[in-house]
């Protein structure tokens, strides 16, 4: 008897331990994922620069401060072969390997420096220019032995420095991992989310109000309910196929535009908002409605003056969670062509654009090692946005949720 009880207690402890292990392992996986992304991504926010002295008069560009400041200065700067100047100066300073030390985007930095301060053009200047991708990874102790040795020599000579990569936050996609930025993708995401919110929120809330407050119980209402519940469970890629077939091939809207992406994601987000809004509306007690009706309010006034304001925190929580899901969504946007190489941030809704998750996907496909840290850095930015949105949703839920 005693032994049996002991055995049962041991089984009890084992069972409990299994439960704890399941939780700890799940949380551990999350932690592992976050730590991996952080470790890789932190380096993506660091830029490596190598010093280069350029003698502009000797380069024979014919650029003078007056010419740069004067009319047609931009044209003259654009026409000057600054990439060749950089290559020659690099070869003169660092020998044959010199040109390979600098990023392909180095000449744009020189151009920007000349435009900001035309007086540089009269003499010899020392500029800090972005390093090439292999030097960059080597300076972060992740490159080939040869490149690392080279970077070490440069560092010892004071010709190499690292700093925060502002260009990563303000730039757009590029073929060179040292010159890429996420602003273009972020702006595309913002435009897409704007369209999604503008469509999915009103439509979702209005249909939730109708279904919960006014809809008669009949076959039509059942049909609407069944379609909303099913739409919430349809795989997101199916919405991409819908967007491709309807928006692109039937309505001939522009490919890879934020408008089409927003429309597609709105259809996907709407059922989520409807379901959350219905739950929030259901939670408003009937006594509120009865009181308003008894005072002579019309059914529309009851809903819009009393039920909706009381349900609003719950509705907003659901909307934010739905929008966070849409912000992290990739697959349907691939279907409607938002995977193009976009080097300039989109200006309007119909411009070709890409979004942050798709940009992550595109960078993850690149072979160059320099893209690994940029992909992880972009993931960090995306996760920061999503965590902030979820945090706001949880705060709203705790702050405003009323238990009746």
């Amino acid at each position, binding site marked *: 008897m005693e032994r049996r009880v002991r055995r049962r207690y041991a089984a009890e402890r084992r069972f*409990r331990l299994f439960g704890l292990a399941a939780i700890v392992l799940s949380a551990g996986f999350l932690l592992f994922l976050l730590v991996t992304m952080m470790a890789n991504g932190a380096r993506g926010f660091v830029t490596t620069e190598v010093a280069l002295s350029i003698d502009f008069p000797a380069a024979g560009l014919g650029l003078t401060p007056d010419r740069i400041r004067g009319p047609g200065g931009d044209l003259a700067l654009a026409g000057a072969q600054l990439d060749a100047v950089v290559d020659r100066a690099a070869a003169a300073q660092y020998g044959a390997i010199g040109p390979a030390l600098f990023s392909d985007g180095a000449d744009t930095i020189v151009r920007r420096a000349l435009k900001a301060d035309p007086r540089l053009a009269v003499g010899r200047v020392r500029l800090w220019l972005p390093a090439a991708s292999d030097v960059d990874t080597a300076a972060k102790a992740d490159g080939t032995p040869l490149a690392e040795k080279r970077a070490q020599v440069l560092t010892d000579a004071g010709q190499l420095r690292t700093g925060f990569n502002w260009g990563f936050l303000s730039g757009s996609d590029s073929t060179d991992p040292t010159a890429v930025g996420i602003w273009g993708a972020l702006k595309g995401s913002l435009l897409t989310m704007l369209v999604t919110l503008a469509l999915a929120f009103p439509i979702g809330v209005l249909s939730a109000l109708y279904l919960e407050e006014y809809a008669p119980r009949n076959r039509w209402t059942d*049909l609407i309910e069944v379609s909303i519940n099913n739409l919430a469970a349809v795989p997101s890629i199916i919405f991409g*196929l819908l967007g491709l077939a309807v928006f692109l091939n039937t309505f001939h809207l522009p490919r890879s535009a934020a408008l089409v992406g927003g429309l597609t994601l709105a259809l996907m987000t709407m059922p989520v908002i409807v379901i959350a809004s219905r739950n929030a509306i259901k939670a408003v007690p009937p006594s509120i409605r009865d009181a308003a009706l008894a005072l002579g309010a019309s059914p529309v006034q009851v809903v819009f003056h009393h039920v909706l304001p009381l349900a609003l925190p719950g509705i907003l929580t659901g909307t934010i969670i739905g929008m966070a899901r849409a912000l992290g*969504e990739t697959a349907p946007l691939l279907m409607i062509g938002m995977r193009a190489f976009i080097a300039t941030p989109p200006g309007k809704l119909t411009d070709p654009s890409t979004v942050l*998750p798709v940009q992550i996907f595109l960078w993850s496909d690149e072979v160059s090692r320099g893209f690994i840290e940029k992909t992880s850095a972009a993931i960090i930015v*995306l996760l920061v946005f999503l965590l902030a949105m979820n945090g706001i949703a949880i705060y709203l839920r705790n702050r405003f949720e009323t238990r009746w």
Partner: protein
Amino acid sequence: MPTSALLFLVAGLGLIAWLSGRVRAIAFRKAPGQRFSSLPRHHGSFAAMWTVLPPLLFLAVWGACAPGLATNGVLKTPAAAQLPPPGFERAAILSEARAIANDHHRTPLNPLATRLAPAYAVEQSRYGWIGGATALLLGIAGGAFAFLRIRPGFNARTRIERIVMASLLAASLIAILTTIGIVASLLFESARFFGTVPITDFLFGRHWSPQVIDPRNPGASLGAVPLFWGTFFIGAVIAMLVAIPFGLMSAIYLTQYASPRLRAWMKPTLEILAGVPTVVYGYFAALVVGPALRQLGVAIGIPGATSESALAAGLVMGVMIIPFVSSMADDAIAAVPSAMRDGSLAMGATPSETISRVLLPAALPGVVGGVLLAISRAIGETMIVVMAASGAATISLNPFNSATTVTKQIVDLLTGEASFDSPKTLAAFALGMTLFVITLLLNIIALTVVKRYREAYE
């Protein structure tokens, strides 16, 4: 007339109508001894709605038919006589001409398109002006009509409420429209696909290689069985082997054992796990899990171990599904009447015995329903398999071997440069149709099971 300017004008008219309707209603109020059912702002809104809605509805319709009218106008010009007969080429030239007319900086490809562009610009601006003027006239007429209807006894509020109700109904119909849109587009394109490829070849063929399609017998290389197998193997077997034990045990621990403080911390953590975008999981699977599993496979001597293995995609997908299974199991266990639990504990059973012999059997239908929903979610998941699974369609029981899924193939087929009518593109829609039907069936079964079970205890 640019659309933004037009919308601005319409909004301005609406504002004027609101103000004047309100002023007129206030003026009527001066007369003594009357009772009103509506406030002045209701009258104002009534006038504004009559001013704004007709032009907007008209513009929506006009926007759909004006391009056709403009194209007809262009076709009557002499330059259009050189256009090729109706078909794909003609449509391409016309759409290019339209693009050049809208955007002067474009470099033209086809000289004919350049010559047609000015005609297009003329026609477009003509129909634009006609549409804009009509819309404004409609707005003014509607506003005047509403303004004249405002009388002391006029009940503007019920009119507005009727419009509000109509818009509520219209909003809820969008869900049905979306469903119809999905079903129609999938059915339509799939029907075209099955017009060239026999449905039996597609459903039962065991060879999938869409890169080389024999035009005489396209069905021979479009057999989807390897994809169905890979989807089932990754989504329903490997992922569930991870998600069910972990999800179930976390739910049991959190509901039965954990202290309130631990629960308050762990539940949001699991929710975060559910909120991480799938592209992040996919990248993690491709960067860390896949190579690690390949090394493991090579180390224990498994032939054909690849870094794009079914195991890598399935494992990460399983982790992604854990919170989902956990929350479904949580609901199912919470729905079991506490009398059953208390009875079992009172008979001297330990908590674990109560859970495994009383709570779980009682909650089983709910758990099964949740698992079915989880499977439907796993097989529809795209980004993890796109990034971590391979494109090679093989049928293999070895989890270290490569496997491909329906969703991965849809993405691969549609992101190439094939034209929209090729069997390759249409095959993606047929795969989408299959996926849609399977997930729909799984959802319906799961929801029925869950509903029955809930009714049993209510």
